């Protein structure tokens, strides 16, 4: 299944939830904020949202800035 994560085309397993996707990417769900098709998904709800083909996902965190 093809999705776009942080602007990059990625192949991921079909039917995974956002929480499972983070695990697959070795990302700590407490350390990232997830935007799924332009909608923010709260941390507690990551396991309830299933990723589908063509979805756009943004994974962000805090970096150094002024």
């Amino acid at each position, binding site marked *: 299944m093809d999705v776009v*994560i*942080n602007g990059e085309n990625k192949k991921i397993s079909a039917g995974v939830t956002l929480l499972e996707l983070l695990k697959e990417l070795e990302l700590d769900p407490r350390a990232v*904020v997830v*935007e799924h098709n332009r909608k923010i998904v709260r941390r507690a709800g990551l396991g309830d949202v299933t990723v589908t083909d063509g979805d756009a996902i943004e*994974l962000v965190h*805090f*970096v*150094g*800035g*002024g």
Partner: protein
Amino acid sequence: MKTETLNRQDAEGLRDEPLVIGGRTFQSRLLVGTGKYPDMDTMVRAIEASGAEVVTVAVRRVNLDRTKESSVLHFLDPKHFFLLANTAGCYTAADAIRYARLAREAGFNDFVKLEVIGDEETLLPDVQGLLEAAKVLVQEGFQVLAYTNEDLVTALRLEDAGCAAVMPLASPIGSGLGLLNPLSIRTIKRRLHVPVIVDAGVGTASDACVTMEQGVDGLLMNTAIAAARDPVAMAHAMRLATIAGRAAYLAGRMPRREVAMPSSPSKGMLD
């Protein structure tokens, strides 16, 4: 022992109230950024030397290849610092709102340093987009600290929109040119009720001092510390300069005059 004595004198010389922004109380009037440091260890030591409690951070995509840890929270304990997320790099109100919402979702606080940039070369703010974004974010319960230019009318509109603080620039972001328009900054401070934090443009300690002498409530800087030859030493200098400028403002400077006045008595001179 000597340090203790000095600190007591510092406290005695500075009868001041703490800085309160959006209901939060801060002891330090110096706020610092976390960007552009040569390395993370220098950043952490510089921020400690600055005495700042509020540190700004930016919202960016995580690095998917996981070859390096890039989150600033890996190095700065969010329990010891108040994280102020910015919307740096946003050129439209819609983008700034999107970044602010993502930042809030990180779960630390609902403060945002709102930037809507209007011009790539000068990084000057787009005041129309800024006001638009400020209104939406205030409505959504954010404590908005709005980065703006040194224009009184925009500052008044931002206050009317419900911003928790207004942050006029001293000079363009990263320029190090110092305070270019003290009159405008003083006017903004005089007319606003919310805290005025000067953000951007300070280059060295004298700039910080002279900015605080205008009576503003605080000062936010990043590059002046991060790009100094010795960022930790400069952070220390900035801490002292911010305190000195504030103390001088509270002390009230002598009037300027264009002719000399002797400091020693003119009476009692020999024939």
